């Protein structure tokens, strides 16, 4: 403090001198002409100078002291010694009787001792609390985020304790979020790793068989390899898209776009896929419903939702894409499949979800469809959710077109 605010330190150092001046004037006023001005002046200003020295030196010395209690005690004792010397010398100057002087000194020692006891007890409580603060900070530093200082003090030390406690709570929250993210990330990597390796293994086997002339129908092997490559390409594209969405670096230009048209397009685009599964898909729209968005991104979202619904729809059933204007485009894609398991309803949009068997690949899904849809809708400041059954209904809502 002294180094950073020299002005304040200097003011504080001048304080004993000021107090000395006031004392000297008071003594002269009380004593009148009979007072020995020179000796008293020497005593008062000498003591003040000693105190000034103390003010300048003590804070620096206290930095090296290992105990707050010791420092406060030392300051008390120094003040007591200065006062004691001043009393003794000035008593001699005004020629006090030995008995008077003795009583004065004894009473002074009594008062000074009480002062030291009070200072000591205060210093002790400060020191205990500061030690606890230190211990708490050390535990947090070692990763024990459950540690709390928890004191009832309302002074600066109490505030420091509360700041440390708040920091610990934040660290605890971050840590638990990180742990959850870590475990879902590991599950994600395991699932992605599996889906990357499966086509790679198939391609490697097919390539080797072709090289060694052990493929009786090469055309079939080549076609299978191309299918595997398509699956890998789709997965790599999805992973890159997710990485860019999560890194917040996906850039797309927004235009005024008709969400019903995109729904219509998605229905037409996925009709062949639906036909393979004997599922009918139908668009139910109230007409043009406009939003401001990335055409490719919103088209992708709709197709992901529709693709996901088709994958879960039982044969012979119908999947409906409903588009309405409810203070902005509101789209619901509904299938009549088993619906989302209750315990996964909230997690359906997170990570790598594949409820069906690994042969889900045949419909082109990578298991990242809903995650991508959620991120894309959020990138449009929209909301996406799972609506209550029967069947599975995923809805999203986009902000309305801003007025021109």
């Amino acid at each position, binding site marked *: 403090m002294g180094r950073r605010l020299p002005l304040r330190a200097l003011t504080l150092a001048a304080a004993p001198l000021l107090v000395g001046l006031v004392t000297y004037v008071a003594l002269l006023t009380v004593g009148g002409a009979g007072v020995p001005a020179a000796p008293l002046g020497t005593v008062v200003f000498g003591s003040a100078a000693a105190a000034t020295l103390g003010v300048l030196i003590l804070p620096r010395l206290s930095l090296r002291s290992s105990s707050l209690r010791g420092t406060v005690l030392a300051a008390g004792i120094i003040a007591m010694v200065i006062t004691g010397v001043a009393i003794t010398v000035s008593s001699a100057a005004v020629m006090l009787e030995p008995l008077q002087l003795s009583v004065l000194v004894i009473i002074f020692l009594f008062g000074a001792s009480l002062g030291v006891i009070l200072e000591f007890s205060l210093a002790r409580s400060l020191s205990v609390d500061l030690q606890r603060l230190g211990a708490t900070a050390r535990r947090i530093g070692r990763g024990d985020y459950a540690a709390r200082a928890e004191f009832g003090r309302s002074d600066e030390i109490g505030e420091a304790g509360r700041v440390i406690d708040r920091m610990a709570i934040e660290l605890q929250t971050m840590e638990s979020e990180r742990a959850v993210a870590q475990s879902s990330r590991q599950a994600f990597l395991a699932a992605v790793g599996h889906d990357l390796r499966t086509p790679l293994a198939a391609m490697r086997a097919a390539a080797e068989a072709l090289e060694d002339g052990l493929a009786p129908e090469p055309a079939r092997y080549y076609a299978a390899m191309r299918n595997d*490559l398509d699956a890998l*390409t789709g997965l790599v*594209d999805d992973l890159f898209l997710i990485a860019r969405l999560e890194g917040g670096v996906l850039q797309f230009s927004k235009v005024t776009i*008709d969400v019903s048209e995109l729904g*219509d*397009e998605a229905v037409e*685009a996925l009709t062949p896929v639906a036909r393979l599964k004997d599922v009918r898909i139908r668009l139910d729209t109230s007409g*043009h419903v406009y939003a401001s968005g990335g055409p*490719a991104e919103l088209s992708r979202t709709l197709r992901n939702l529709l693709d996901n619904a088709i994958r879960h729809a039982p044969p012979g059933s119908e999947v409906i894409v409903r588009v309405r204007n409810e203070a902005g485009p509101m789209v619901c894609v509904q299938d009549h499949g088993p619906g989302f398991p209750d315990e996964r309803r909230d997690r359906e949009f997170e990570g790598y979800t594949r409820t069906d068997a690994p042969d889900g690949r045949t419909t082109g899904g990578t298991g990242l469809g809903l995650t991508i849809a959620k991120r894309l809708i959020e990138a449009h400041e929209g909301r996406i959710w799972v609506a209550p059954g029967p069947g599975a209904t995923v809805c999203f809502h986009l902000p309305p077109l801003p007025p021109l």
Partner: protein
Amino acid sequence: MESVDRQNGDLPRRVLVVDDEPTVREVVARYLERDGMIVEQASDGAQALDALKRHPDLVVLDIMIPGTSGLEILREIRQGGETPVILLTARSDETDRVVGLELGADDYVVKPFSPRELAARVRSVLRRSRVRPSAEKLAFDGLVIDTAARDVFVAGLRVQMRPREFDLLAFLAASPRQVFSRSQILERVWDAPAEFQDLSTITVHVRRLRNKIEADPLNPRWITTVWGVGYRFEP
């Protein structure tokens, strides 16, 4: 366009393929040569600029090539004329793709692409640029489509159109009130099987077209959507 139109239909078409990956160039060249085209290859910007001096009929251009950027080369081509260009782009190059189309590329293919698909696109673009215009004029109340001059007038004012936008409008207007699905439009106007082109191409072109010819693009009067079926032109 003029530079290709004056060519006789029997001459083999010359295609310049610009890509820094030798395998990609070679495979694309094989496919195009199988279709009877003469292919010249360039692996970087300098070679591409040099080959452009020999006026190819079409350029297949990778955006990411060493030396001069693909977009620079596209700009160069557009300054020299209307030679059709098909861009090769990475999936993440959305911005480049948009810029490329704005600069006047005729089509794009996303890497990794199917060489079969690319060959089909090349054939489609070349066929279109070889089309002999019919001397017909489609006139409606407030909209005139001059198929000979490939000009469109809205309320008497000429509207700038990209080739595909014009083709789409002329196609729809030629059969008023008839509904066409996106796949049908892809096959008839783009001359590409639906598996090689995404249906969103049509949605995007219809949107651009509406922005150009409709008084209120949000409530279209000329090109309407028949939900669940497709698009139609209202005379």
